């Protein structure tokens, strides 16, 4: 009798082996893996979703563009799922490009970010970018360029420090976090489809609670990046009479509160290497000019952002200890405009 039971158990076990992965499990080659998702709005009514799906069949990876329209992003996703030949697996989405016309309405953008964050299919580590262009153009641009991989758009944002210090990469969760942060606003990179390259970096848009306040240039982006503790290594600066490359950088911030007035003293140390210079230009002059230029650029940006009450540098983050939690709510309106920053740049020759 006992033997019989064992035999039955064996049969059950054997059948599980044969049935393994026969219901909802799809092999990777049976899935469509979109890498980039474009979201735009047409006629202020319908959402248009564009997916860039690489076709792995060929040796030179090309990709196809799939679009869908619907009232909500979720419904479009479902629609694309239904119509797609393979099962669509959104887990590899690495970049979400949002057209700027959608971003005009803060409430809609906030809802979109919340949806993307909450959706289990779409990874919250996907990067976000804005574009003025038609999203479809940006995504389909990739197939027109020679020698470009399907994953190029994603690679574009991942060149890393040391190569392109001004490029931003902002993930969905960072944008989501900034929606609820009292003390930090976020800059989202803005791109266009390029003529020769797939993308063209146009700077960054400052988002304050889902509202685009203003756009900053790539030069200013790089300054913001420095305050996000990213290394400035690889930055090339042209001073007119000389051009230099930054080989290393570090920043130190000191905060203090006096009479309810926040003060930050920042020290940016740059190590530079002179690439070219006109005759008779001394090292000292180059250094002084660079320091002056960087400081000027910073104060200009600070003034602008203080005017619009958006703390793009995240200075408020450093006052969490000095200001009580209840008062932090008013950081943007009360404290930030009064903030004094003592920004000093020290450039050193290598």
């Amino acid at each position: 009798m006992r033997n019989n039971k064992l035999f039955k158990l064996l049969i059950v076990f054997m059948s599980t082996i044969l049935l393994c992965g026969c219901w909802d499990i799809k092999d990777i080659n049976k899935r469509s893996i979109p890498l980039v998702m474009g979201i735009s709005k047409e006629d202020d009514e319908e959402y248009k979703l564009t997916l860039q799906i690489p076709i792995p069949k060929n040796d030179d990876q090309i990709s196809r563009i799939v679009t869908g329209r619907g009232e909500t992003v979720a419904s479009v996703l479902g629609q694309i799922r239904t119509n797609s030949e393979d099962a669509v697996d959104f887990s590899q989405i690495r970049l979400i490009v949002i057209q700027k016309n959608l971003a005009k309405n803060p409430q809609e953008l906030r809802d979109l970010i919340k949806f993307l964050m909450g959706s289990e299919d779409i990874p919250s580590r996907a990067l976000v970018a804005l574009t003025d262009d038609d999203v479809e153009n940006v995504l389909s641009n990739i197939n027109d360029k020679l020698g470009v991989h399907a994953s190029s758009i994603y690679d574009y944002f991942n060149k890393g420090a040391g190569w392109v210090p001004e490029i931003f990469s902002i993930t969905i969760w960072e944008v989501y976090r900034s929606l609820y942060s009292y003390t930090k606003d976020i800059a989202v990179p803005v791109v266009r489809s390029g003529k020769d390259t797939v993308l063209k970096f146009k700077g960054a848009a400052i988002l304050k609670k889902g509202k685009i306040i203003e756009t900053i240039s790539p030069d200013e982006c790089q300054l913001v990046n420095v305050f996000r503790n990213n290394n400035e290594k690889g930055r090339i600066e042209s001073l007119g009479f000389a051009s230099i490359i930054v080989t290393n950088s570090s920043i130190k911030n000191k905060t203090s509160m006096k009479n309810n007035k926040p003060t930050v003293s920042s020290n940016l140390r740059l190590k530079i290497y002179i690439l070219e210079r006109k005759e008779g230009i001394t090292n000292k002059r180059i250094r002084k000019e660079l320091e002056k230029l960087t400081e000027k650029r910073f104060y200009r940006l600070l003034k602008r952002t203080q005017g619009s009450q958006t703390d793009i540098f995240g200075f408020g983050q450093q006052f969490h200890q000095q200001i009580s939690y209840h008062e932090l709510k008013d950081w943007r309106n009360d404290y930030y405009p009064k903030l004094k920053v003592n920004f000093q740049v020290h450039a050193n020759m290598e």
Partner: protein
Amino acid sequence: MRDIVKEIESKFSNHDDLFIEEELVGKTTIYFIGFNTLVDLTKSKLYVQQMAASSSSVKALFINLSDQVGVDIEQILKAILEGKLVIVSKGDAENAIVDPIAQNLNRSIEEPKNESPIQASINAFGDDITINVGLIRKRLSTERLCHCSYQVGELDKRRLSMLYIKGRAPNILIEKANQQLKQIKSDIETIDDLNKQFGQRILSPVSHLSPTELPIQAIHSLKKNRIVLFMDNYPFALVFPNLIWDMFSTENDRNFPFVLTFMLRLFRVIGAVATVVLPALYVALVSVNPGIFRTDLALFVAKSREGIPLSAFLETILMVVIVDLILEAINRLPKSVGPSITMVGGIILGQAMVEAKLVSNLLVIVITAVVIASSAVVGIQNSLYIRLLKYPILVLASFFGILGVWTGFILTVIYLASLTSDDIPYLTFNIKQEGDTK
């Protein structure tokens, strides 16, 4: 006392290799009785004649030859079966059991066949139990090395020896093992028969005993407070209890500088883990959780699997089974045919299956890595059981993906941790020195 000879003759009437030779020593006729398959009669006769020349009487000769003089018929029969030479004097009560010059049925001390020590002594245990114990005694000359011998079995009395170092091996362990060996009723033919005596482990791939061919390894185990068993006519020392660390270390590693020893052992651990986890990880990543891959890798994997009709699990289990079949087939075949199977297997599996798009080339790489990794552990029995452990994890992985892989891995570890031999857990790293020195 002619009737003893008669009785022996009638008892062994079905044994054609029994000899009863008459011989005249002085004035007395004596009979040599024994098996000519076990006793070298000519040489033994010569030996007895030489002894007879220096002995005054037959009685003195018998005493000179042996200390077992005038024994009863039972013992004589047993002695004949054991390959002894029995001498009986005609019409007299005198008899003696003599250690003869035996037919050489053992090979000499040879190199190990199952293990390949590098930069080490290459003497290996042989078939004879006394030689095996002697090999240990020679290398470990201390009075604390104790030797208990047993004769167990129903049909055939098999000789067993238990060696331990007094004061090193825990007393409780020695007592328990002693009890268990004494209680053996059935015949001991294989290690598994002996293994069962230490507590039945139904369906368990892990043995209580860890066989080793090398005296150095056996001595090291003795010094590490463990017991070493020998079976007659079995060229391995059986270390009891078997511990997991045996899989990763041999004493010969220590012939290298510490860093190299560490490296070797680390590789073995990596090999064992890779064998268990890699095929399952492949299935999990390719079919259940591709989201974990980096983008480039995901695209690459998708491309490599393009057009393959089998699901990842079927593909993997197919390859894993075929590879295990090949490994077994190589074992079974004569040495001259083995390499051709390797070649055919390698070419057919590696090349043709990939070109026919039956399995992805990525899987072939994974499987090759697994086969190599599984061979890195010490001892073929360990390699075999590690190869077995990968199957349940593979099945779990195909259901639950990464979660299944790690659940399976943890369950495996829990299972291994639950194993004990005589209350010593399998996952023990060091047995405490608990024995009395006195």
